[in-house]
């Protein structure tokens, strides 16, 4: 079985401050990990992924995420948030033994205030 937990329903930050969105996962074996963002009335946009290699992964729009195997975490970060980063963020996991099925977290709504 595989699952994802996003412990925070909402994250509020001021523009220019660091942004962190938390994600922990549970999977048998090694994981593939993903972050997606959903803007209002839009589909999901792929941000970044961890497959193998460096634990720090850089993605679109200045976002990065750090894979921590011991803590089974894959937190999303951005050093300086923008108002335009306000959106719904989803973490997803797939076990390497699983050919296709992604399991998504419940999502975290990020609000960046000017």
């Amino acid at each position: 079985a595989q699952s994802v937990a996003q412990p925070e329903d909402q994250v509020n930050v001021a523009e220019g401050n660091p942004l962190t969105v938390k994600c922990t996962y549970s999977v048998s074996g090694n994981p593939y990990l993903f972050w997606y963002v959903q803007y209002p009335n839009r589909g999901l946009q792929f941000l970044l992924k961890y497959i193998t290699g460096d634990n720090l992964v850089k993605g679109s729009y200045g976002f990065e995420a750090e894979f921590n195997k011991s803590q089974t975490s894959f937190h999303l970060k951005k050093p300086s948030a923008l108002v335009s980063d306000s959106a719904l963020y989803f973490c997803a996991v797939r076990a390497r033994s699983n050919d296709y099925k992604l399991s998504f977290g419940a999502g975290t709504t990020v609000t960046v205030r000017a």
Partner: protein
Amino acid sequence: SAVISQKPSRDICQRGTSLTIQCQVDSQVTMMFWYRQQPGQSLTLIATANQGSEATYESGFVIDKFPISRPNLTFSTLTVSNMSPEDSSIYLCSVRRGPSTDTQYFGPGTRLTVL
């Protein structure tokens, strides 16, 4: 990545009717997926649609309720049958190009409201 379009983008339907959602991809893909996102909820996989074979449904979803077609490598349809208000959701199409491609890309979604 992939350019994915869905039609319609939104619809309001009466209970008991059916709606067919179309998903078109700009290039050939091996695997296509249909997801449901209920209001305020996360995404749930409905089924996987591979060209030339029957769709594979996840637990809790059945073909009679959500029939799927996959006539070629760039197109798929999902029908929501005999709709009830509980079917009000966003339905999203997703693709992967092949077993060596790890990332799923999503269409813009179809927002369905059932009255």
